[in-house]
């Protein structure tokens, strides 16, 4: 999949290929902003306002359920008789399901999301997958995040999205909760990786020991691969230090779980509300590779506990942002592949294909499972897997067009047409980023 660099395949507003000069130029431009902000000596609001990008769309929160999320356990096709035949042990009993419809029901561990589902803020799309499925985690993850099979594009899809939307601020795309950045953000658009806001501080910087300034100077003329992250640190650290000093109390009594995911989602909420110019956040929530002990639908079993964590964190996030906040946010989940329809001998399931995505947001037309269900009958399976009838990129494409202001979807996903499920209300004031200031809309969740 690694081919020679060739920019002609991409219709991006910003070329996906980037010269060293380009990286440096961008980093320097951002750097100059940071320097000015820190020289201004003004308060947090000024600095944050300076950093903010005039972006008119939703903040997109991507939750990567790395390891192979079992969509068949999360959004259970209880109305498909072959489901229980394939999963005599780990199948989720129909009477335990919550919400859903005559065909599908949600796993009981998702109970914290029931209200959001019923209020129409949460939806699922089933039988989603990649156009060229692989059962290799590593190949499937790479393609999932590059999201341009059959092209020579090297960038991640989220990077291309940010490029099209004109992202320039250091906080445009942030990987939250782990030290390494997501590959979906690989490419020329600026991005950060944060363990946490509170931990993102530079030691020793004081009026007598101007470490930040010296570090900036030390990376002058440095190779781009080193200079870009070094400068991004220098640019972002003032803002994170200020945010950290301000402290944070979640709104509306929201209580995040004390888990890595809970902490990451809390920081995403903080960045969103802090108006730092966050356009896309990427949160990695792994450990779904349940070959063994996926288990039955009771607390203490792997799938149950992991879904419970997911539900608690998403529920707290929605509560914290409130209706107004959520009207400017869309959260989506994705995973490199689903799991095999038939369970294995270890109370688990091996790597598969078709999967479910979850969609949460004020504009989501929820309380519904979308998709073209292919069925689980033996003659409907593909090599033992749920067939993928919807390209996951088409789903994201619909969000990008209707909520984020992406008009040239080919620049993100070459050759992909957005789905027409009507997953979300179109954002009324979508226009070119420069022309429209972001302001909260009055329409909350229904």
């Amino acid at each position: 999949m690694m081919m020679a660099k060739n920019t002609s395949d991409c219709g991006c507003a910003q070329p996906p290929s980037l010269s060293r000069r380009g990286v440096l130029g961008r980093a320097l431009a951002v750097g100059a902003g940071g320097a000015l902000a820190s020289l201004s000596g003004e308060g947090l609001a000024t600095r944050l306002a300076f950093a903010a990008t005039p972006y008119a769309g939703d903040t997109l929160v991507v939750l990567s359920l790395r390891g192979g999320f079992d969509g068949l356990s999360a959004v259970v096709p209880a109305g498909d008789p072959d489901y229980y035949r394939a999963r005599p042990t780990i199948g989720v009993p129909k009477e335990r399901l919550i919400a859903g419809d005559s065909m599908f029901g949600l796993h009981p561990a998702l109970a914290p999301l029931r209200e959001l589902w019923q209020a129409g803020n949460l939806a699922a799309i089933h039988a989603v997958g990649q156009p060229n499925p692989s059962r290799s985690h590593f190949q499937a993850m790479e393609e999932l995040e590059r999201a341009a099979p059959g092209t020579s594009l090297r960038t991640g899809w989220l990077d291309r999205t940010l490029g099209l939307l004109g992202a320039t601020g250091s906080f445009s795309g942030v990987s939250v909760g782990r030290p390494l950045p997501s590959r979906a953000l690989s490419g020329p658009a600026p991005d950060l990786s944060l363990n946490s806001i509170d931990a993102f501080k530079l030691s020793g910087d004081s009026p007598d020991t101007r470490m930040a300034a010296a570090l900036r100077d030390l990376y002058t003329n440095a190779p781009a691969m080193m200079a870009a992250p070094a400068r991004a640190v220098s640019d972002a650290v003032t803002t994170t230090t200020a945010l950290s000093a301000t402290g944070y109390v979640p709104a509306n009594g929201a209580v995040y779980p004390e888990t890595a995911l809970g902490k990451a989602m809390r920081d995403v909420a903080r960045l969103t509300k802090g108006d730092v110019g966050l356009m896309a956040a990427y949160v990695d929530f792994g450990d779904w590779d349940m070959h063994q002990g996926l288990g039955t639908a009771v607390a203490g079993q792997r799938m149950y506990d992991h879904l419970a964590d997911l539900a608690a964190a998403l529920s707290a996030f929605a509560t914290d942002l409130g209706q107004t906040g959520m009207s400017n946010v869309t959260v989506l989940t994705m995973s490199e592949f689903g799991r095999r329809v038939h369970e294995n001998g270890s109370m688990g399931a091996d790597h598969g294909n078709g999967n479910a995505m979850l969609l949460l947001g004020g504009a989501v037309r929820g309380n519904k499972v979308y998709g073209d269900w292919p069925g689980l009958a033996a003659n409907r399976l593909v090599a033992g897997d749920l067939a993928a009838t919807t390209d996951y990129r088409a789903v994201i494409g619909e969000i990008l067009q209707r909520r984020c202001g992406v008009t040239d979807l080919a620049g993100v996903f070459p050759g992909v047409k957005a789905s027409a499920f009507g997953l979300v209300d179109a954002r009324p004031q979508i226009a070119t980023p420069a022309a429209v200031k972001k302001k909260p809309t009055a329409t909350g969740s229904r």
Partner: protein
Amino acid sequence: MPFDSARSGPDRRRLLKGGAAGTVMGAVGIAAGVALPATTASAATADVAAFTSTDPLRHLLRRATYGATPQSEAELRGLGAVAWLDRQLQPATIDDAVCDSFLTRFPLLNLDIAGVRAEVTAGRLPVGAFGVMQDLARAAVARATWSNRQLLEVMVDFWSNHLNVTTPSSDVWDNRHTYDRMIRASALGRFVDLLKGSAFSPAMLSYLDNRSSTKANPNENYGRELLELHTVGMVYTEADVAQAARLLTGMTVDRKTGQYRYDANQHAVGPVTVLGFSHPNATAAGGEAAVSALLDYLAMHPATAARIARKLCVRFVSDDPPAALISRLAQVYLTAGSAVAPVLRALFTSPEFAASIGAKVRTPMEDLVATLRVLGITPEPIDAAGGNPAGTEAIRALEWTLQSAGHAPMRWGTPDGYPDVAALWASTTGYLVRWNAHLNIAANWYPKQLGRPESMVRYLLPTLPTTYGGLVDAVALQLVGMRLRPEHTAALLSFLGKAATTALKPTDNALNGKFGYLVALVLDSPYFSVR
């Protein structure tokens, strides 16, 4: 999620972000007078040559060890590269008293599986005891820093990633350190022994779920990664995975003892074909022997040879290593029956290695350990009165620092092991953690318990420079082996608030309160990041 470039070829982030590694090769080729294909625009080529000392012995130390110390440099200069390499390839001949003595502070690591379980039974360890695994990770930081068997330590890390079993994780609580022992024993030996050692280990069989596989419903997890990650790479078919998984059934872990056990009752018999390997697999009793034959076949498969050769080149030569070198090393590997030492000897004496100065960037672990080594940091003293009775407080803190950089030993969360290319470590958090660690250590803020030279100034500057310009030059020469470019020297002078020609007095702040900052900034600079 990062990926192992040895598996998937040139990394796209690297290509995208400007092809810096390729740039490095081009630059070095020109600087060293070696004809290498120009891979990038000439405007970029001045950069990296100007960031790296071109001394070939320093180059070897940067690559084959966790970083230079004055002692290691003197030894290498005394022996010459070939004799030094021979010595490193026979680690048992190298005295390692300091490191061995420090490791006695982790007595749990000497236990076998039964011994660990006995500690739990006796109530001296909690059930599930993560402590053994935590000690293992801390010991790995100590070994990397203080062992004189540096190439062994580098190769233990290499194989620990190649045959990754994530640590800590609850399913390997009692055996992960014995798995490490297996890797250490063969890290400079034959790959086929490592492969079999892992296949018959309770750690790998637990980590990749083979222990619960059944003949009726084989679990494919280990079978797939055995092919994709451990041996041939992405040349397998789904049928190969299914066949391998079927053959591996019966290889399990005894629930009572935690030891490897072969359960013939769960072995699926019948002919097996995997990537041109075939075996009648006729009896349940013969299942283990059939697996062993498959492992022999896979270890000597040309695709395995090429993958391991490439991965070694990515580790030691460049992020996008020359195909000709990979091909030569793969042949050495096959000729040597998967022995690693001949491959390493060929690699380190190759013209491609010589021409690769500046083509690698330090990972967070390499950076932290190199910092400790270049600053003459020694093991923490045992200090019962000072709240450090076990003498492990500092090493715990260092391992924790690596966790926050995303690079604590053996901690990578997926079976592919840590990435080994610069692009995937080009992370803002990684830079921030490194920078903070440099200052914390140089200024003796954290961890405070570490042993250190009586005077860091005298350790790094045996002769005191007489001017500020001389000070910046001397610190740079000591830490990165070269003077900095004028703009960077100027940056440090500006930090100190002095002109190059200003006279330097021993009582000046720059040699007292600010000295740690100056040291840290040189370690923070791109020069120190180059491996």
